[in-house]
């Protein structure tokens, strides 16, 4: 029997269609059918200037928008040979790690509610609300912040924002302990997740799987450690790796990642100087400060040129990779010397991790398909772009 786990389904975490060929309750074949959220973001990027395309990148992985911003900004900065000032880099790390926590909270909440643990969903969203409020305080936007710019940050963070971050750091560890109390030794949780969705490390690498799914299979690969970016090499954190490679191991890996992210946020708060430039000193690329623009002729001309024409990087191509909450996020940006990107390709982790879905749920029961989809942690915006 062929069953359609249709694009509209509460457990597919978005508009994902999975064609399931069943033999009773056992899944013989599972075929994902994607493209329901395809909006042509990559094509649209070719019609915008490099700075305008930043807002498009938010919408790709909409649960971790700052990760996409960071990857794109780093890619264009690489193309230009530009580096953001240290203060901007530390604040970027801080906000990206908060994004990682926020994304994992959504994952945990939705995964738990798929398995039937409904209260965890509300608790996770309560915590995430605090993070979103920090984003709103800093950038004016709760989710699609577009807070990073080519060369640094968009705005000076407001006074008092670090107090709010500190308050989050103070309350979150006990809340995380609360979730673990509810789930980690829970018989139903363990019964539904242990042994489900197994993939061997060789298969995982062959299928291009990355992120917590790969690390739960025993492969110690985290882009923050392997190819450090934005001063991650100055931070002290461990990368959780497990070997059981089932849904339960992935749960443990992601919970531990949340703890490690808290540690990184704390270090970033200490490292980031309280004052200093948030944008690089690059006159033709980074817009001048408004006071200068109003009094100096050169600054006015630069401002005009940047906002009407945009800046043109040298012709060439770069592939910038970061560790997003879902895995290896890569932006391939190709320039032809004009102010608009010639090609932007977003190598999104969910797209590739979803390819492994047939491998991990074929031969198992129908109820495990929901656990498997949840454990891969997919975001359809990222898959379809």
């Amino acid at each position, binding site marked *: 029997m062929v069953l359609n786990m249709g694009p509209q389904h509460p457990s597919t975490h978005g508009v994902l269609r999975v064609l399931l060929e069943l033999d009773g309750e056992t899944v013989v074949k599972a075929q994902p059918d*994607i*493209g329901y959220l*395809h909006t*042509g973001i*990559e*094509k*649209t990027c*070719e*019609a915008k200037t490099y700075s305008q395309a930043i807002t498009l990148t938010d919408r790709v992985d909409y649960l971790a928008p700052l990760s996409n911003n960071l990857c794109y900004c780093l890619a264009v900065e*690489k*193309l230009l*040979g530009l580096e953001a000032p240290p203060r901007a880099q530390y604040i970027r790390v801080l906000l990206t790690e908060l994004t990682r926590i926020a994304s994992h909270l959504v994952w945990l909440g939705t995964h738990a509610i798929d398995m039937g643990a409904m209260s965890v969903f509300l608790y996770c969203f309560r915590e995430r609300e605090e993070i979103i409020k920090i984003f709103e305080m800093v950038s004016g936007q709760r989710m699609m912040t577009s807070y990073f710019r080519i060369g640094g940050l968009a705005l000076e963070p407001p006074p008092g924002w670090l107090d709010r971050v500190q308050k989050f750091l103070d309350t979150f560890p006990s809340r995380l302990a609360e979730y673990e109390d509810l789930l980690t030794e829970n018989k139903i949780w363990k019964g539904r997740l242990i042994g489900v969705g197994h993939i061997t490390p060789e298969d995982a*690498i*062959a*299928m*291009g*799987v990355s992120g917590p799914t790969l690390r739960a299979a025993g*492969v110690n*690969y985290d882009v923050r450690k*392997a*190819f450090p970016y934005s001063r991650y090499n100055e931070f002290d954190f461990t990368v959780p790796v497990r070997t059981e490679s089932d849904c339960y191991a992935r749960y443990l890996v992601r919970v531990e990642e949340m703890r490690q992210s808290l540690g990184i946020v704390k270090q970033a708060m200490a490292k980031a100087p309280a004052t200093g430039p948030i944008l690089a000193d690059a006159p033709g690329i980074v817009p001048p400060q408004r006071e200068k623009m109003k009094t100096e002729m050169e600054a006015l001309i630069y401002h005009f040129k940047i906002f009407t024409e945009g800046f043109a990087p040298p012709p*060439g*191509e*770069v*592939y910038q*990779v970061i560790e997003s909450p879902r895995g*290896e996020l*890569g932006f*391939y940006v*190709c320039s032809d010397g004009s102010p608009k990107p*010639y*090609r932007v*390709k977003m*190598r999104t982790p969910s*797209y*590739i991790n979803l*390819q492994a879905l047939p491998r991990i749920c074929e031969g198992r029961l129908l109820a495990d398909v929901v656990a498997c989809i949840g454990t891969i942690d997919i975001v359809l915006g990222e898959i*379809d*772009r």
Partner: protein
Amino acid sequence: MTDTEAAEKLVVRKLRERNPHWVAAVVEFRGEVTIEVPREHIVAAADFLASDSELKFSFLSDITGVDRFPVEPRFEVNYHLLSIEKRERVRLKVRVGTISPAVQTVTTVWPTANWHEREVFDLFGVRFEGHPDLRRILLPETWEGHPLRKDYPVEGYR
């Protein structure tokens, strides 16, 4: 890293040693090495890079298509490789022309290439010979045209 230093890199040297026809050009830009491989040799070169014990490019990160219309050869297919053990990245580039653009599939070397190649076929129209299931992935099966080509308008056809 200059172009000469890039040519000295292990991956380039080993590829040239194994078969000099595999390396058509080597470019270095912003610390990244791009090796242009002629179309007919891509599978052999890919197999070598994935299996060689000193290189171990076992992880295919991405396959990207680029349309260079109206320059010929029109399409570029870029393979972004990663070696987890050696912490190295490299890009392979294959150029294909406008008339019946086709490249051999690398799904035999890296199974993850399956969806990557389907996407390049869907959005650019480059065929991958030997692909187990070459059909559109993001757009509906009945869609006509290949949207990421430069002669396809951003707003689409109505």
